[in-house]
């Protein structure tokens, strides 16, 4: 039993942290958010490292690693608040690798895994207005409009942009039912995607906490750093509580996806529910610790706050996942809640 990253995992995480920090300084994040775009050159570089295919089998051009490794990359993307189509491309890759036909795999996995193309992927159930991530500009879309999973090229469906408050990612809505069926079973892939997304939320929470802690150390009021007041320091301690719970459940869920599938449904729902709440609660509390300054457009916390809020509702709201947790924990199933 060893609940810590192994050396390879640690290296993946550290490298991602470092690379993303240098490519996505917060000024860069701001520039991309304000223009609502991604930086193709950075994607070419990062995509070329094979991050999107990290959990895709080697025979399909991937790195053949697991959901733990993918989740770690997503955590770092969240930590950097990076505008980057990594998650969506990796998610589509997981769907195709685990449920696509041989033809679909051959057609898409090598290009997706090596970052030569990007993919769009739905972030909500069809009944929730089908929010798609990164459909705009993608080479291929994996989606399910209630008639089973499908794969389509953008020309085969209709995409309309959606301007959510989170401008660090591209959202849109899809209509039409073009393309071709994905023949396999996608439950595992959906759970794995949810966990990778929980990783991103954990990273957002971690960074929003670090920003609060740093500010609380520096900012003085009434002759003391504000972090010396329990009103602030206890709020920061609660952030760590939230972040660490989110991380424990998310890492565990990722490990279940790789090694203990019988625990996956419960673990994935716990991870997503907890990480969603942690990301929003920590970001909101971080704003409170900062005070007025973080309410200004010129402050960078807003990107984390808004991405946390939008992301918390995607891939199942926290309440919907908790309803599922109650089911698996022994209370039986009940029609999913709606708000």
């Amino acid at each position, binding site marked *: 039993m060893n609940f810590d990253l192994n050396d390879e995992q640690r290296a993946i995480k550290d490298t991602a942290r470092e690379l993303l920090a240098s490519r996505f300084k917060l000024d860069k994040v701001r520039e991309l958010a304000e223009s609502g775009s991604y930086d193709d050159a950075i994607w070419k570089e990062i995509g070329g490292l094979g991050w999107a295919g990290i959990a895709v089998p080697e025979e399909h051009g991937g790195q053949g690693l697991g959901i733990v490794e993918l989740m770690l990359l997503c955590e770092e993307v969240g930590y950097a608040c990076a505008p980057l189509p990594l998650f969506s491309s990796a998610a589509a890759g997981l769907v195709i690798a685990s449920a696509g036909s041989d033809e679909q795999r051959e057609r898409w996995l090598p290009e997706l895994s090596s970052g030569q193309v990007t993919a769009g992927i739905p972030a*909500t159930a069809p009944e929730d207005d089908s929010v798609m991530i990164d459909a705009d500009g993608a080479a291929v879309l994996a989606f399910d409009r209630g008639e089973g999973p499908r794969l389509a090229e953008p020309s085969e469906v209709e995409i309309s942009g959606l301007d959510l408050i989170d401008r660090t990612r591209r959202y849109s*809505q899809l209509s039409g039912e073009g393309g071709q069926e994905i023949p396999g079973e996608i439950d595992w892939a959906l759970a794995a995607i949810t966990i990778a997304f929980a990783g991103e939320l954990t990273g957002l929470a971690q960074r929003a906490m670090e920003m609060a802690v740093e500010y609380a150390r520096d900012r003085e*009021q009434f002759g003391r750093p504000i972090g010396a*007041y329990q009103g602030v320091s206890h709020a920061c301690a609660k952030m760590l509580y939230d972040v660490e719970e989110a991380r424990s459940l998310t890492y565990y869920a990722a490990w279940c996806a790789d090694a203990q599938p019988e625990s996956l449904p419960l673990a994935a729902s716990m991870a997503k529910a907890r990480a969603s709440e942690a990301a929003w609660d920590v970001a909101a509390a971080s704003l409170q610790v900062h005070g007025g300054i973080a309410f200004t*457009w010129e402050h960078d916390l*807003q990107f984390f706050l808004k991405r946390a809020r939008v992301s918390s509702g995607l891939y199942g709201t926290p309440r919907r996942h908790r309803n599922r947790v109650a089911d698996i924990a022994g209370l039986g199933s009940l029609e999913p809640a709606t708000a």
Partner: protein
Amino acid sequence: MDLTLTTSEQAFRDEIRGWLEQNNPGAAPVAGDDAEFEFRRGWQKTMHEAGFAGLSWPEEYGGRGASMIEQSIFNQELALSRAPMPANVLGLVMGGPVVIAHGDTEQKERYLEPILSGEEIWCQGFSEPDSGSDLASLKTRAVKSNGGWRITGQKVWTTYAHEAKWCMLLARTDPESPKHRGITYFIFDMEADGVEVRPLRQITGEAEFNEIFFEDAYVPDENVVGEVGGGWQVAITTLMFERAGLGAAAAISVSNSLDDLIALIRERGLAEDPMVRDRVARLKMGVEALRLGGMRTLTRTMKAGIPGPEGSLGKWEWASVNQELGELAMDVLGPAAAVDGEEWTYRFLRSRANSIEGGTTEVLKNIVAERVLGLPKLR
């Protein structure tokens, strides 16, 4: 204990209500800051002509000498009718009352009438980037010069600075005194040289506030309110009027929001969701507690003559209810809800500042603990 209005209070309410039915201009056009502001200036002119601007000011200063209750009824009716705020709200609620309380005869003659008419807009220059909750640590300097003072420094969170003629300005006139004693309160002319106003955009995308930069900007001695070095007391009076004057309207506005949210919940078919119901009930109770707490505070204030520290509870409560309301609205609207620029999205994001502006919730808790409960102050 009698929560009904007296006959005369009721007559007053009916008068206001009738007048509003005839004169309410409706929501301001969302045509950008300036157009909206001019709309509200016109609305204030209408109010003034009907004698409703500065309702509670003494008659000798152009007011109607209304009681606190009448002022409160007026504010409530205004909010209930969802009429816009008058353009010069800061002059009416803070600037004028401070001049009446602390100003000299010349100042009263000079400043009061144009506040009422909306001709001269006022803004407030208290907060600075480095002095947030710790207001008295402000650093903007005033240096004696030639029958007046030269101001250098920076203010932040100033509403209407770009529309204002006058700024209620706190500056440090004596850097040697203890921090609460070296501060002076000026009525600063925003048309003076050496002043620059920059809009301060918020996370909502709106620029509701401004920064003001002062660079050796001149203000004559006659614009000092109260004593030189006595600005802290004047500032305290201002803040007291702020909390009392803006509180009632804010409470009604959150009540209006809850009504909107209930309509939205029904529209979305979520009225039978037990968790939504429970959250709505908590909000309803919060809104009612806020309304009733406001009435209790008003009764107490009328007896004591001045607002007490209990008002801090109301501000804290209001922020908390408004934030929970915003969160429920987002949950009700669902994952595709957070559309940039939409009304609910705006309210939701805007509410995050409620626990910071006008006293952070942490500072309010300190006030409640120390001044209401008598707990020891942390030294």
